[in-house]
């Protein structure tokens, strides 16, 4: 207990952690869902790390957003609190248990978003020093106009903070959203080299992207345990009429 901060970045767990990053409309969640299906069918123990917030942190975030009380700094800190809770509850335990953990967005979202809000890049990186380093971090690279077309059509009104309205970039929420997202893209681009993000061209077909993702993931899976409860595989082999 005393001393020895849990700097999970340096730790080695038997599990694997794959995360996806990208702006809204990059298609990253679809790709992650397809990856999950495949991993399960291959018999891996998959844990989808739902970002279930701690109720207390969640309430503060919700209230802060609703009442527009958040500054760049408190926005950053409350999201870091939330992320810490997730790390402590939804990342470390399954990794220790040897699972393949999947996460939709990770620390790079915070780095991009908070720096776009004026927070110091060094500070926010130090802040997240407790995070587990992902096995592979995919970045779904999308030109802004492509992403904008995907989301502005199919979605309800943009939210205040999501559109970066707190930055006063524009009074028009869609325009503000675009300006804010382009800043975020700039930050992501810088992080490709800094953190070795694996950039996937998200303008290609869904199938092509998924094939590349699966290829990279399967290389990183060597030695990972599979479940003996082969939910999918058994059915597949039964269909083929062979025994496992």
């Amino acid at each position: 207990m005393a001393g020895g901060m849990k700097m999970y970045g340096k730790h080695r767990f038997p599990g694997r952690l794959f995360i996806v990053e990208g702006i809204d409309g990059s298609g990253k969640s679809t790709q992650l869902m397809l990856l999950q299906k495949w991993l399960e069918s291959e018999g891996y123990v998959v844990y989808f790390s739902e970002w279930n917030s701690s109720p207390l942190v969640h309430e503060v975030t919700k209230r802060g957003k609703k009442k527009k009380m958040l500054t760049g700094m408190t926005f950053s800190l409350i999201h870091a609190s939330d992320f810490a809770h997730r790390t402590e509850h939804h990342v470390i335990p399954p990794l220790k248990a040897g699972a393949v953990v999947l996460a939709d967005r990770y620390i790079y979202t915070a780095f991009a978003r908070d720096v776009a809000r004026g927070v110091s890049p060094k500070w926010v990186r130090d802040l997240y020093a407790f995070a587990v380093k992902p096995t592979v971090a995919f970045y779904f690279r999308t030109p802004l106009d492509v992403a904008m077309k995907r989301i502005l059509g199919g979605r309800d009104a943009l939210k205040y903070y999501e559109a970066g309205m707190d930055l006063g970039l524009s009074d028009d929420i869609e325009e503000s959203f675009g300006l804010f997202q382009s800043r975020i893209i700039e930050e992501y681009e810088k992080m490709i080299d800094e953190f070795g993000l694996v950039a996937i061209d998200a303008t290609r077909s869904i199938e092509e992207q998924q094939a590349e993702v699966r290829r990279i993931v399967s290389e990183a899976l060597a030695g990972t345990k599979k479940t003996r409860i082969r939910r999918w595989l058994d059915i597949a082999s039964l269909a083929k009429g062979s025994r496992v």
Partner: protein
Amino acid sequence: MAGYSFFGEGLPGIDLAELKGKLIVLEGTDGVGRSTHIGLLRQWLENHGHAVLDTGMTRSALAGKRLKQAKEGHTLGGITMSLFYATDFADRLENEIIPALRAGFVVLTDRYIYSLIARAIVRGSDPEWLREVYGFALRPDAIFYLRLQIDDLVTRVLQSRGFDYWESGMDMHMGEDMYESFVRYQKWLLAEFDKMVETFGFQIVDASGSVEEVFENLRDRVDRVIARNGYGS
């Protein structure tokens, strides 16, 4: 010129040159009499024509209430709790302390980042990391560290309100009962505070005397801080 600076990477969008007031911190372990002295100092300063803001931990508009609940239910993990406290502190710094300093107030704060750091270290967080996280904090004009030896502390706490779950570090399972746990936990906190004396330039105030004695000592020191730069009464 007050000449404020941040400990590390500072807050975005703050012009330090605008800050005219004084930031005075009272630190010390639980039960050492900080709030009593904040109250007395406030009265005395106001009597001398200074506008005063007094503020303390877990009182932010943003997170204060939930932080109290988190403590009562003690449901959050160590890092989460540290960062939740940091959020609360940032909210108070940006929305109470800095505006008050801008307006030329004397800000008296019951604890500052030092208590937060000490508590988090004792609960397993990395000291270096904590200092980086709190790099956005302003360096105060003075930090008065009310110091009591552990025996005196035990006596004082027993005389006033008895042992409290958190002040006894019961969440850390440090002893069989509240007394044992309190002593161990507070000793550990004291050791962490003592380590910070030089690093952060604490002024040690012996808190073992009577309230009057301690207050007179504090008052004279505060007077000197206020009088600096021709700001005085």
